[in-house]
């Protein structure tokens, strides 16, 4: 059977469409592109969108879960304490930790003044990971360094830590939480304080 010109044209359009969709998620497999995508989505869908603070927080939660490997971060943050905690405590921690980050970030969405993120380069890091170096340009031409620690997972790269001017988010949480655990009655004490913090931040958001 002869393929008419029209059929051929339709076929090639279909091929292009298929290959486009296959490549559309390519940024998930490139460390630099993943960070750029996160910043782009964050700015257009959340920071620059004309929606309520609560909606911004909801959108951020979706974005955060998509780009970050939260279970790995949580495990790093709890470190050895995770082993002595019960399954329920670990589960509760994972839930609260996600909330803590979502509301901590959301609190500051209103202060966005057009800062931009520029990716510089990346270096290999850990097992199958990368450290993406970027900087954020502030309004008064001041810039600060932000490094993104990435790990390759089944569906592409995921962020496991953000390091601002040498200060790692994961390490800071880990050291703060370990102090709270030691001084405020173990994991139970930490969970109670995290719950209180989340409730307060949530109430302020409305």
């Amino acid at each position: 059977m002869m393929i008419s010109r029209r059929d051929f044209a339709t076929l090639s359009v279909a091929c292009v469409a298929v290959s486009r969709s296959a490549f559309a998620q390519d940024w998930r497999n490139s460390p630099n592109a993943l960070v750029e995508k996160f910043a782009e989505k964050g700015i257009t869908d959340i920071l620059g969108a004309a929606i309520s603070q609560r909606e911004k927080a909801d959108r951020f939660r979706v974005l955060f879960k998509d780009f970050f490997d939260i279970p790995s971060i949580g495990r790093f943050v709890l470190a050895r304490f995770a082993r002595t905690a019960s399954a329920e405590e670990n589960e509760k921690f994972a839930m609260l930790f996600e909330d803590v980050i979502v509301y901590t970030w959301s609190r500051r969405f209103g202060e966005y003044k057009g800062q931009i993120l520029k990716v510089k380069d990346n270096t290999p890091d850990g097992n199958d990971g990368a450290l993406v170096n970027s900087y954020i340009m502030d309004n008064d031409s001041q810039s600060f360094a932000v490094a993104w620690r990435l790990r390759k997972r089944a569906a592409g790269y995921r962020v496991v830590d953000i390091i601002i001017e040498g200060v790692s988010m994961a390490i800071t949480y880990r050291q703060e939480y370990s102090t709270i655990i030691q001084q405020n009655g173990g994991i139970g004490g930490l969970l109670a304080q995290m719950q209180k913090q989340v409730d307060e931040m949530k109430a302020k958001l409305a």
Partner: protein
Amino acid sequence: MLKILPHSQKFIIKLLFVAALTLVISSCATKPPASDLAARSAFKENNDRLEPFNRAMFDVDQAIDAVIFRPVAWTYREFVPDPVRRGITNFLRNLRSPITLASDLLQGNVDRAGQTIGRFVVNTTIGVLGFADIAADLGTPYHYEDLGQTLATWGLKDGSYLYLPVIGPTSFRDGFSQALDTFLIDPVAWYNYADNPGWVRWAYFGSVYIDARANTMTATDELKASSIDHYASLRSAYRQNREKEIRNGAPAPLPSMTNGEDDPFAEAPANK
């Protein structure tokens, strides 16, 4: 300096010193038992042997900051235009070039010493006494060095974390070397030793402090608002930032994990 003080004042200073020492020794942090591995490793990681004393000093410092320094820095930041503040930061940075240069040389870093000299010459002349950072525009950015960083590169550990009112977070190594930097290497100290009016030095100290306080205000406010235990998160952030300065900005080695894995950010089992 103690020589010129009258006898009674010397006695009071000695008494205060003994009182402070007693307070420091009596408020040492208790080490968790060896059987509690998680607590023991966290204790080691935090390296804060004087935690009860430091926490008390932290409260004093926060109170002083809330009443005096933060409001002054806030007013300065709010009412002085950005370019002027930037100029003052540049001027103060240029003024401490001798400290940076001495540290560069003591660390055997000839390249960075050359950069410091070049920056000083260009910024002091073309940059009008250092108010404009022309050298950075020409491709030689500012870097910060001090004696504490030098001692760290020589292999001296920080001793323990130390928190002092007004000074803020530091360590035994860095607090001690900061005093040496301020009183021995800083050209403003020598200007003062040469019988010049004392107010110059106090004005200089005040400017450095308020400039630094204003520049770190966003970061410190954010840390305070986002932490449950402000003291602990500041201790962690301060130390990491300090480590970065010592490494001259090179990326940190991967943090250690306690479960024997080679990658602390390995995929969590629940995720697989």
